């Protein structure tokens, strides 16, 4: 690794300053504000403000809605991650075996990534709209009465599919790059030894892909927990009966729509802690199983 030695003590700080400023203004300061607000009880306009200690957090623990939101978030994050990673791995393996049309397929598969989450949400809203959508019509023909407005399961399926679809392109790109890095000689050797395509995939390709898979696992969980706000907002708005009210949407709804800033701040502090914990767990334990 190449090391640069600075003779001047000031220069490295100066070079870091823009990044530090951005981190401070857009991350540390708002996070600090959230922590401060989470200990306060305040009216919407900020006229009456009083310190209430941990009351906001205690209220969260007592709230069945919040417990429900935790559960929904867990189910949602697992489903989105599994679905989007599974499908994109399948697509990447398929593309990897192609010889001439790889580029064309890759380009086409990357397209959905360019669609903004809110736009993707609206598209899915139209496709699955119980009254005017295409899918409910098709499902009705095969005998399934689709209604994500009153059915909790249908609503969950909708947001999971819409969110996973959005992430497939991203995962796909990384998997394709990862697959190209797997030495062909290893696979050939295995083939000569008589291993079939499935065996070759699970014994050679997949273990060698593990750094990519691990990286994507972290990224996808973070994506499912935070970046899916637009999809939820455009399709179900957390409903029906809070069935798709993931934590980040609840933070938004209680804070921005409901003007309950104390509770919303407490929720975002919990969310911050949760993400820190998850990331630590992933790097401490899961990463040990990764072969670089």
């Amino acid at each position, binding site marked *: 690794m190449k090391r640069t030695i600075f003779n001047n003590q000031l220069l490295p700080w100066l070079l870091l300053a823009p990044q530090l400023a951005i981190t401070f203004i857009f991350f540390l300061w708002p996070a600090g504000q959230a922590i401060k607000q989470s200990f306060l009880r305040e*009216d*919407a306009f900020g006229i009456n403000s009083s310190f209430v200690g941990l009351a906001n957090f205690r209220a969260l623990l007592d709230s069945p809605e919040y417990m429900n939101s935790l559960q929904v978030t867990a189910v949602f994050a697992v489903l989105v991650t599994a679905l989007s990673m599974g499908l994109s791995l399948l697509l990447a393996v398929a593309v990897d075996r192609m010889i001439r049309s790889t580029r064309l397929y890759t380009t086409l598969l990357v397209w959905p990534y360019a669609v903004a989450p809110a736009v993707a949400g609206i598209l899915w809203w139209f496709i699955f709209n119980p009254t005017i959508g295409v899918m409910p019509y098709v499902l009705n023909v095969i005998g399934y009465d689709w209604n994500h407005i009153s059915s909790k399961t249908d609503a969950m399926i909708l947001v999971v599919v819409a969110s996973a679809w959005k992430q497939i392109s991203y995962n796909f790109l990384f998997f394709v790059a990862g697959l190209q890095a797997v030495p062909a000689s290893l696979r050939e050797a295995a083939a000569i030894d008589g291993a079939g395509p499935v065996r070759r995939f699970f014994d050679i390709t997949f273990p060698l892909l593990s750094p990519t898979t691990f990286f994507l696992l972290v990224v996808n969980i973070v994506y499912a927990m935070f970046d899916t706000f637009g999809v939820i907002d455009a399709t179900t708005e957390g409903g029906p*009966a809070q069935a798709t009210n993931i934590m980040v949407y609840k933070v938004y709804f209680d804070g921005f729509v*409901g003007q309950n800033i104390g509770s919303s701040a407490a929720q975002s502090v919990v969310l911050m802690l949760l993400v820190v914990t998850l990331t630590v767990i992933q790097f401490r334990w899961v990463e040990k199983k990764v072969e670089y």
Partner: protein
Amino acid sequence: MSRTFTVSAFALIASMSAANAQTDIQWWHAMGGELGAKLEEIVQGFNDSQDEYNVIPSYKGTYPETMTAAIAAFRAKEQPAIVQVFEVGTGTMMAAEGAIVPVYQLMQDNDVQFDQNAFLPAVVGYYTDTDGNMLSMPFNSSTPILYYNKDVFEKAGLDPEQPPKTWGEMEQFSKQIMESGAASCGFTTGWVSWIQTENFSAWHNQPIGTEQNGFGGLEARLTVNGPAQVKHWGNMKKWADEGVFKYGGPVGGDNAPPMFYSQECAMIMNSSASRAGVIANATDFELGYGMLPYYDDVEGAPQNSIIGGATLWVLSGRPDEEYAGAAKFFEYLSSPEVQADWHQFSGYLPITQAAYDLGKEQNYYSENPGSEVGLQQITLNEPTENSKGLRFGNYVQIRGVIDEEFEQLLNGSKDAQGALDSVVERGNKLIEEFQAQNQ
């Protein structure tokens, strides 16, 4: 050369000082599309009518977004003088005593003539304090009414000129329609919270909460789990199971109007202000209008319906001359001509008796069927404590709770009594929180 320069420089300075002499007044609103264009036309009318003040309207998105933007701006001391807030935000705005300038006081302070008796009591009553003083200026108010498909009624062998009056008829007509195959569903509704719960209670003269539905103070609590409401929610569930009623989703019920337009459902209950939209979309059939149905075995029904919509609040902390301008602007806004024009264009209710009378004089109501139903409904009887309106803190979230519990009822996890008990319990928790924040 130098002379032209001097002259043009003078002209420039002169024009600048002319512009400076005018006081700019910021008005944040939530009216998009055609309503927004009409709003700008009204503002232009005011700006052209005098040269002291210049009202600048800015569209800030949906109602919750506009309110959130104004509150955030207030916290950053960058607030507009006037902001449009929807009716469920009233509790929050009222409790923020240091943040608002009540309209009656604004008019007094600036010596603008203001007769509160000229306003329609059912409209203004929603926005007065316990002494009857008007706190905000009603701008766009509406009330739910019944729209129905006359063609379907005829096909089903019903009299197309007779909309159902009671819920009994509603059920009977719906079943006849479904059996005859004229439509596959009887009715749908927008706004389960506003129409099937709040308005339902007022229409049957049943309390929504204690302390005159919250008008009496922050100690008020919800009591919306009374026998009439439980019976109605129970019936809604029964009708949903039978296919008589189809649910259009939470909040405004986005999926309800398409079901009516596509003639899947024969009837819809929705805001009187959506009349123009309904006419524009109901192109394939003859449209009929009626009042909300009621249960004839509930004593006191029908009483009067309550309003929804938004009012204009004046925020504190702006320079004095802006308040003088805001007072003048409100005077202009409540003049019969402006009111009648806005009401007839948008379908919102007029806020003054004079504007209502002007519409009658112009034969507007006889030429436009259905445009008077809402007005007749809110003025049907003198409002009682139960039908003046409602005022609770954190009400945006409580509306969410109502939707959620209704959905629990529909998917069978709770019965009507259980669902409404939960509305009261969860709602009261939010109200207690609001009370704690504002004391």
